[in-house]
């Protein structure tokens, strides 16, 4: 029986059924019950607002490029800048979540990047345009806090669903902005009567305010963990304040984090690249007008409404029967098919065929993103934030790489670039074969005999740290993650008596 120093938390009633870490074991979409579902809604809405801000410029480019006298090179560079800032910001965000908690980490980042959106209004040159897109792009690091928060609030059996929905509905912002910004612009230009070059500037107030308000909502309404905020939990001794160097070390020495960082670059990274180039592709190759190209571009991002969450849900459903091995197999298959469809997209010469393939491709590539974050929460318990950050950052690296290799200058035509990107997706996805969890197995190998979840998660703590009881949450997590053995693994060894709770009260 667990004895806690603060009796209030053990007596606490939650609106949803919870496990021993007080993480919810159910996901109820239409509830806003504190703290679990409220955290979900706060996180996806704030992430959505960051995506709206980051991709607010592309739909208004026909006006901005005339106002700021941009060349095609300027526009391409700004597009790359918009996604490259988040590469390191995501890793930093992961660390911040581990150390300060997702509530403070995300509201801080959002409030620090809101000025970049406000100052977009006064940009007057290509250089200024590049800078504001670069700094606004940092806000995409809220992805990491979103996934971390969900992994802190939801139990392993629903964590894929929670991660997939919050990530997917946030990504939706990239599609929604292609419809929102032109609408706001025309309201200001036509109804209020401002000139074109003033109207686009005023339109940027909308994403800026939305971002700022979502940060306030997180700060005042959100909570880091089911039992409270980091500050209070650390002061009362329920949560140990971890050391940065240890957290960082255990993240970067876990090879699985690096593998998923690479593969995420070829599902999410590809999604970002397509967000940047697809409107122009349809406009140039099939001669549709700008409005139509924008709608096609928007539909790619809007598929996130169900495709990424679908990936997360699929991950959880497969895990019920086949455990972690099922999650890994599904990820590998779905991402491979995504790569194949990308290859096909570049080869199709008809407009309707291209739109159809693009839509199917969007479902698979976004589902792969959801499936990736069905695996991430299990790679490390101590360094969950940094691992999430590395994977997220890897996604943006993939976006930068693919744009620089295939979509810059005139080395490849856009359709050749898309097909070659498909080949690269398939090649890079092969590394998933190398992931192996000793307690659960990998794609081709089963689990090692006698290895338990405790062995894996507690190896992140030294004996000295264990003696002081810092590893409590890893212990609870190990118990809760036993589901990842799947139906077949139910009779596999449990931890021996030497690791029972009596040592850490």
């Amino acid at each position, binding site marked *: 029986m667990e004895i806690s120093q603060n009796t209030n938390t053990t007596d606490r009633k939650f609106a949803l059924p919870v496990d021993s870490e007080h993480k919810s074991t159910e996901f109820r979409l239409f509830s806003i019950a504190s703290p679990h579902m409220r955290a979900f809604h706060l996180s996806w809405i704030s992430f959505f607002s960051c995506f709206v801000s980051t991709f607010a410029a592309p739909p208004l480019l026909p006006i901005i490029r005339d*106002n700021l006298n941009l060349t095609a090179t300027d526009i391409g560079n700004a597009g790359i800048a918009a996604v490259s800032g988040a590469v390191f910001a995501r890793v930093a965000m992961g660390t911040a979540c581990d150390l300060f908690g997702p509530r403070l980490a995300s509201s801080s980042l959002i409030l620090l990047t*809101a000025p970049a959106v406000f100052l977009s209004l006064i940009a007057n040159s290509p250089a200024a345009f590049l800078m504001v897109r670069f700094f606004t792009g940092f806000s995409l690091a809220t992805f990491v806090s979103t996934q971390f928060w969900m992994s802190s609030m939801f139990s392993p059996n629903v964590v894929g669903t929670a991660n997939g929905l919050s990530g997917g509905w946030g990504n939706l912002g990239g599609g929604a902005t292609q419809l929102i910004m032109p609408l706001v612009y025309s309201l200001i230009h036509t109804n209020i009567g401002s000139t074109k070059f003033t109207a686009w500037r005023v339109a940027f*107030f909308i994403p800026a305010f939305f971002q700022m308000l979502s940060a306030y909502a997180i700060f005042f309404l959100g909570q880091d963990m089911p039992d409270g905020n980091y500050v209070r939990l650390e002061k009362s001794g329920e949560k140990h304040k971890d050391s940065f160097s240890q957290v960082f070390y255990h993240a970067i020495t876990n090879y699985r984090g690096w593998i998923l960082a690479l593969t995420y670059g070829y599902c999410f990274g590809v999604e970002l690249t397509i967000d940047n180039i697809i409107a122009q592709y349809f406009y140039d190759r099939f001669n549709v007008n700008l409005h139509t190209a924008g709608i096609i571009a928007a539909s790619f991002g809007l598929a996130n409404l169900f495709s990424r969450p679908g990936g997360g849900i699929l991950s959880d459903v497969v895990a019920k029967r086949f455990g972690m091995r099922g999650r890994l197999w599904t990820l590998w298959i779905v991402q491979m098919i995504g790569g194949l469809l990308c290859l096909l997209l570049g080869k199709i010469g008809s407009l309707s065929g291209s739109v159809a393939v693009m839509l199917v491709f969007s479902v698979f590539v976004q589902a792969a993103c959801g499936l990736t974050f069905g695996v991430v929460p299990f790679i490390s318990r101590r360094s969950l934030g940094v691992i999430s950050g590395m994977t997220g950052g890897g996604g943006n690296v993939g976006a930068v790489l693919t744009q620089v290799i295939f979509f810059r200058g005139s080395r490849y035509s856009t359709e050749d670039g898309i097909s070659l990107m498909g080949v690269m997706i398939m090649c890079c996805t092969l590394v998933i074969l190398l992931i192996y969890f000793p307690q659960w197995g990998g794609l081709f190998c089963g689990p090692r005999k006698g290895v338990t979840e405790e062995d894996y998660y507690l190896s992140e703590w030294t004996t000295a740290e264990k003696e002081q009881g810092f590893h409590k949450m890893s212990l609870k997590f190990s118990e809760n993650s036993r589901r990842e053995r799947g139906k077949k693994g139910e009779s596999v060894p449990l931890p021996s008596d030497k690791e029972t709770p009596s040592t850490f009260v």
Partner: protein
Amino acid sequence: MDQFHAMFAVGYLMLSCFAATCYGVTFSSLHKTLIVSASSPQGHVLKAGEDELTIKWEVNQTFPPGTDSTYKTVKLKLCYAPESQKDRPWRKTVDDLKKDKTCQHTIIARPYTPSNNSFIWTVDRDIPSAMFFVRAYVYDGQGVAVGYGQNTDRSKTADLFTVHAITGRHVTIDVASVCFSVFSVGSLVGFFYMERRKGKVSLVK
């Protein structure tokens, strides 16, 4: 027989209409049958929304008389010079006039008269910063382009006008954006202060 002739004529007219619109008139098929000149008291550098451009056009007498028998309307357009088309595929010059993006700003459309034409145009506020020349297209009764004239030469390098666009910025917008940026960062500092106080209070408990 008469009915047959009538049907044939109608069919031929329709076909030629379709042919013209489907085929797409190319710029290289047009002759420079108009002489166009443009001038401004401000010289060759103009401010959008403020300065004026005086444009004069008349038929080119060196062409045989009767060339302009089909001319019905004249459209004056502001077109991008090659310097402002560099690295900007959305302003590309294409021979097929339907796909050509060189001339994106219409100045005025007028019924055609052979001479004594002049128009004073205040540069629109939404003209971007770039180098321009003026071109006039003439259209026949069906709206098909049949001739043109421009104030510059074949290589589009002579007699160009530089327009300085408005920035679109206003003092109120500038002030508002800076104020809200400061407010955003300031409220973050406030949040950290509140968090530290909360931490101290729970310790006291």
